[in-house]
């Protein structure tokens, strides 16, 4: 129980950090919506923190949507799509090592593209992708290094 609580609290802290950084970056209103951070957080929490509770994830998603002014269900859809993609890849591809370094990145990019399908309001697609990928790369490996 204690370890579960610890993990959950840790995830809550990471979510708060993600939310704060998202708001901080979105404060400049350059490339909205900046979804890459929450995607990275979901992937990290799902695969590395073993956050099994889907309810928690959904609550986080709703809070994130409400806080940043997105449509409700936006981030949750991305996350659930990532999980479905994970299931699909698991069925279709068999990796021998089962510890591919690039697998979470593939899922993150997949989530980002799915977010573009859901919300294609941005007119600067290439800069949007570049900025999101750079920020996501930095954030993901920062979490890998310091968040575990």
């Amino acid at each position, binding site marked *: 129980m204690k370890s579960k609580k610890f993990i959950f609290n840790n995830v809550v802290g990471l979510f708060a950090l993600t*939310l704060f950084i998202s*708001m*901080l970056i*979105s*404060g400049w*209103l350059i490339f*909205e919506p900046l979804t890459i951070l929450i995607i990275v957080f979901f992937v990290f929490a*799902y*695969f*590395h923190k*073993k956050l*099994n509770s*889907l309810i928690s994830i*959904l609550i986080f*998603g*709703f*809070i994130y949507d*409400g*806080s*940043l*002014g997105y*449509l*409700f*269900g*936006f981030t*949750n*859809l991305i996350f*659930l*799509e990532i*999980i*479905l993609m*994970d*299931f699909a890849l*698991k069925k279709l591809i068999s*990796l021998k090592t*089962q*510890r*591919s*370094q690039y*697998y*979470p990145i593939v899922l993150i990019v997949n989530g980002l593209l799915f977010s573009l399908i*859901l919300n294609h309001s941005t007119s600067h697609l290439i800069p949007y992708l570049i900025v999101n990928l750079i920020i996501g790369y930095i954030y993901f*490996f920062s979490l*890998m*290094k310091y968040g*575990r």
Partner: protein
Amino acid sequence: MLLSAKKRKGSSLFNRSKISINLTLVLFIFNFFIFAANQESVFFKSIKHSLNLTPYSLSFFLDNLSNGIDSVHQYFHFKKTLIEENHNLQNQLYLLNNQILLQENLILDNLELQNKLEIKEKYFDHSVIAKILKINYSGKNHHFLINKGRSDQIQAGHIVVDDKGILGQVIDVQTDRSTVKTIRSKDFYLTGYILIKNKPYQTLVQGNNQSLTINYFSKNIPIQIGDSIFTTGDDMFIPEDVRIGKVAKLQPSGLKDFYKVIIQPASNPNQQKYLIVLK
């Protein structure tokens, strides 16, 4: 390398048997319906309003933070300015107080000078008003320095008076300074008369460093405490009928039929700034 950091025990990507794919699909569809629903309704708006943490609110917070920092800076700047202003005002107040004191001193000086001038005009035609410079001059008791000297035709022997009576005698004269010995000095002798029942009785008065004494005064004369004593005058410098003082005590002398009379001088140089030198 950052990528190599992932090779840890927790990096199990394909072991997530706990999550049911059916549940995930149901949730996905449910979320899609929510996402596609009209979110302009009151229900969604109220939730969004309660979560009110949009980037705008963050920028509002940041703007207000900078305003707050500015306000704090302004407060300290204002406080510093106020302290400086207060300091300047205190300095000005100090100067003004000094000026007021100087003016009060001037008024007092003027009053005293007017008093002395009136005395001079009324009683002593040939006189000059002098200012006391130093009391107990050169460490001598009952001596003081005045700011008039030979250039004002002051001579040694001239008598000095104040508004109460005789005060002393000039003993040394320089160009613009003179030394005065008071009547309280031990070696100061003066001839005076005591008015007793409107009848004068001549006597010799001597200083004793504290007051004046008449060493032998006949007990047959009905002298009383409070009787006044005046100068007899001489042909040289001492004028007539200038008050010396009052009888303060009658003490027994060495001789049976005589009193030793203690006289309290009328004048007091410590209470004066200006004196009249009689020429």
